[in-house]
């Protein structure tokens, strides 16, 4: 079966720094693909390229059977790549429910005319948006906070809300940038269950994470970036034993 996402030879330079150099990956449908690497390895840069925030200097990019040419963030969301952010980027002064409702934007149509006239179709769509948003809040386990402003939610719930908002776009690929950062062991355990649920429900996940235990326990495949290059890829077990990975993480002298 064809991979959901495959990139070939993607590079991205910032001035003289090669944030990504000739990176190739393929992510199979229905899997959790882990992306790890030391700080500054280029993980988030790769995310930003995949979600259209950065334009790559070169390389090929195929998603869901089609070549991706115009990399605009909103087009990528419409294609089916949704993401969360390393430093949470919620709509702080909107309620949790409204945050998720915004996520429905790309899958709904009502324009200015529909909003003003509010005919039958527009009303039905609006009700469906709210219902779907409620379901998703329930799915990630924060239904009780639906009407609270996003900025008043506790940290762990904000991470969950970001995931719910991303899921509202009906992504084929859910890209999570360090979802467990700053979480304690209990919260991480609950997050792991949530991600397993999402995978079981058929959404492919691309996961950047520093929590090695979480990555090794959860991911089907793992790729390791270092200085913008992919230095290893395989099952978690293979990657763990790879001497190049050990050297990248622990330094050459210890390897």
């Amino acid at each position, binding site marked *: 079966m064809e991979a959901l996402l495959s990139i070939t030879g993607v590079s991205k330079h910032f001035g003289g720094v090669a944030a990504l150099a000739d990176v190739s990956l393929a992510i199979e449908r229905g899997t959790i693909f882990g992306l790890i690497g030391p700080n500054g390895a280029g993980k988030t840069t790769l995310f930003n390229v995949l*979600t*259209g*925030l950065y334009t790559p200097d070169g390389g090929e990019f195929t998603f869901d059977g089609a070549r991706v040419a115009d990399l*605009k*963030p*909103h087009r*990528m*969301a*419409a294609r089916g790549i*949704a*993401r969360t*952010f390393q430093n949470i*980027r*919620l*709509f*702080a*002064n*909107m*309620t949790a*429910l*409204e945050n998720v*409702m*915004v*996520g*429905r*934007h*790309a*899958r*709904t*149509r*009502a*324009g*200015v005319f*529909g*909003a*003003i006239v*509010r005919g039958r179709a*527009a009303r039905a*769509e*609006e*009700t469906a*948006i*709210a*219902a779907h948003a*409620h379901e998703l809040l329930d799915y990630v386990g924060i239904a009780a906070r*639906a*009407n*609270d*402003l996003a900025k008043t939610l506790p940290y762990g719930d904000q991470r969950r809300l970001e995931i719910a*908002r*991303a899921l*509202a*776009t009906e992504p084929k690929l859910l890209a999570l940038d360090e979802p467990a950062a700053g979480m304690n062991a209990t919260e991480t355990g609950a997050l792991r269950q949530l991600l397993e649920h999402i995978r079981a429900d058929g959404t492919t996940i691309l996961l950047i994470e520093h929590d090695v235990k979480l990555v090794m326990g959860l991911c089907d495949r793992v790729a390791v970036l270092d200085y913008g290059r992919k230095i290893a890829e395989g099952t978690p077990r293979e990657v763990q034993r790879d001497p190049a990975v050990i050297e990248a993480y622990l330094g050459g002298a210890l390897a």
Partner: protein
Amino acid sequence: MTFSDRWQSLKRDPRIAWGAYAALALVLVTLPFLVGATAGNAWVRILASVLLYIMLALGLNIVVGFAGLLDLGYVAFYAVGAYCYALLASPHFGLHLPGWLLLPAGALVAGAFGALLGAPTLRLRGDYLAIVTLGFGEIIRIFLNNLNAPVNITNGPQGIDRIDPLQFGAFSLAQSHDLLGVAVPGLYAYYYLFLLLALAVVFVSLRLENSRIGRAWVAIREDEVAAAAMGINTRNIKLLAFAMGATFGGLSGGLFASFQGFVSPESFTLIESVMILCMVVLGGMGHIPGVVLGAVLLVVLPEALRYTGDLQSALFGRVFVDPSDLRLLLFGLALVGVMLLRPSGLWPSPIRRREFAATE
């Protein structure tokens, strides 16, 4: 049951709500007669301009309050609407197109200008956006001021006078009419027309606020990168905000031209943009009742302060502070006070606890 619970349940009671709306409607309908009889028709004029500024402030509220785009040149769209009406319904070109056509046309032209002037600013935010929009506002005014040579289009600083009053069929808003044996001056007819349109603008604003488009605007205000990642075409949605806001501005401009019978570039200076922005900020950015309150206060209070001159001479036998100086002084103090004590405006939006059908 606490007081606020009781208040909430009172507000939910449909009979109370309808009663309140009916009372409000009665007040708004009888207001010109009450004010005209007690304070004179000059104050009815002020009421009409309150309504004009409510429309302007609600238009700017879409750009600044909802979408978070700080626009300091908003008065340009007011000017576009006003000149559209003035040029096509005055002896200046000898054209006398009907007002019912010119009002929507002026609004549309202003909306197009909104998108046109918005387009180059899409990559800017915050202070930089403010500076560029301020520049655009001035460009429009300077054009109006200088387009009298070599071909006289706008009649320059002299402005355009003898603009046709609004007329719907045989019903002219310039004359007084007999209504059930009571003579209703044309001024009152303008008040009612402005009231109707202001209510329409409030209605459209409310509908837009609670819609897919309104949420997209607020999302862009809160975090543009995240909004784009959620599938919002930020370019189009921002242009839409500029265009919608400008449309309201253009509509008010057309009404202003027909109401005053005279327009000149002097009516569309930077300070006018600043005043409209103050109405939005002072009232409560993004909160429609707050913005309406801001517009009412900032039109009525300066007019009321004119009377302090009489008051001073009555009390002290002479005028200590020129009323117009006092207005600026108090205005400055009010701004500082609001920014210190109520930085989110006099009437900001409460944390909304909306109940959707799905939870019930």
